[in-house]
């Protein structure tokens, strides 16, 4: 029997069976590499009790693309694990804050490098590691540390996830991915940390062999589902990132 194609016709179809309670890692940093189309499909799909792993939840800019903050506002999120769980400026507002303050969403704040390494470790079959990051801070209070070579390190655990949502530049039909410029960011490590990897792809799919094997960023063995992003306005194609707007 032929293997099922990894290419799906729609974002709705690609996210249809994501169950309540899933942990989902969302690629992207600022705008590049954010799976905006998959986030929008998940807003429509409505799965609840989600744990969202992301650099930040978004929503500080006035002109919003689909973001994790919208999933929060939509009542779909139980927990957020991120490097930003509150705005860095006291005068900024992000949608997540209200839900955390009211106890509706749990927020786990993780330094960005630790977030990346916890995902990398999960994808590499390593259950835990020690890092110098956050030693001596509130985040390390009451947690296990160990000295190596005279320096103190903090124990951190791998973070395997159920699902990863990614955005890539090019893909072949076997799922080999290329990212362009800073679009790469968390995407390759989230692909390796997840059991189910769903990718929105910017360019038309090419046949296996059309991408030089030396050029592949993420092997197709990590990728289960892909959807070609349609042209705007049907597909979401971010332009220049708007400057942050300070809201009172």
């Amino acid at each position: 029997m032929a293997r099922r194609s990894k290419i799906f016709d729609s974002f709705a179809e690609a996210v249809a069976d994501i169950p309540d309670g899933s942990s989902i890692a969302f690629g992207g940093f600022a705008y590049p590499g954010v799976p905006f189309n998959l986030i929008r499909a998940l807003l429509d799909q409505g799965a609840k009790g989600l744990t969202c792993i992301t650099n930040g939840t978004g929503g500080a800019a006035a002109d919003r693309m689909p973001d994790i903050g919208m999933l929060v506002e939509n009542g779909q999120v139980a927990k957020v694990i991120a490097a930003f769980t509150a705005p860095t400026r006291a005068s900024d507002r992000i949608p997540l804050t209200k839900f955390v303050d009211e106890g509706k969403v749990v927020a786990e704040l993780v330094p960005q490098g630790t977030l990346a390494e916890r995902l990398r470790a999960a994808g590499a079959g390593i259950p835990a590691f020690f890092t110098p990051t956050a030693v001596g801070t509130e985040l390390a209070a009451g947690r296990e540390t160990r000295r190596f070579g005279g320096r103190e390190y903090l124990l951190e655990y791998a973070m395997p996830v159920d699902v990863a949502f990614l955005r890539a530049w090019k893909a072949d039909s076997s799922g080999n991915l290329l990212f362009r410029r800073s679009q790469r960011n968390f995407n390759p490590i989230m692909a390796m940390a997840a059991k189910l990897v769903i990718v929105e792809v910017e360019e038309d799919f090419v046949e296996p062999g059309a991408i030089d094997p030396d050029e592949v960023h993420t092997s197709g063995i990590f990728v289960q589902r892909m959807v070609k992003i349609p042209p705007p306005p049907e597909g979401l194609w971010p332009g220049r990132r708007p400057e942050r707007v300070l809201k009172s």
Partner: protein
Amino acid sequence: MSTGLERQQIADRLAQEFRDGWIVNLGVGMPTMCSNTPIDTDIIYHSENGVIGSGPVLPDGQEDVHLVNAGGQNVSLKPGAAIVHHADSFAIIRSGRIDVTVLGIYEVACNGDFANWKVAGANGGGIGGAMDLAACAKQVFVILEHATRDGKPRLLAQCALPVTARGVVTTIATNLGLFKPMGDRFLLREIAPGVSVDEVRAATGAPVEVAVDLRVIRTL
């Protein structure tokens, strides 16, 4: 009393500490202004999102939508630039390959502790890459206004806010001068034009030692 240097002038003074060939990571906000300073040194800028060797921010219409720096600005790439993924980008940081990180902060203590991720009373915070950078860069430069908006000192004997890292700050630049944390005091290395040592002392929440070779900051 003079309020000392403008924000770009503070960044300019700090950027003159950069040495040829350094790998530099600039935080969001005032630190990014260090990249505007016309310095005659070859710097490789590193961003948390894996961009190594970025150039100036591109004007509207010329941006590459796939390329931003850590502040989300649409930057360019210098010849010789490279892109890595996030785990490798932080491997570069944790393995001590960043010569200096410049961070915008809330407060700094004379023992080298500093705070920049959580404001008083907040339920959560914004750490980003700051804790990794602070713990692992060879040097940590911090840049800040010397006082809060309501006139309270931000150079302190001890941090009041939750710290980002302990004992790591090597150089402090404010609108009033250039300082070094000395454990139980700050060393004033250079002073802003039009500002007196007494004014610096009055605005600082810990003892200030004046360098024997104290100089006035030369603005560009």
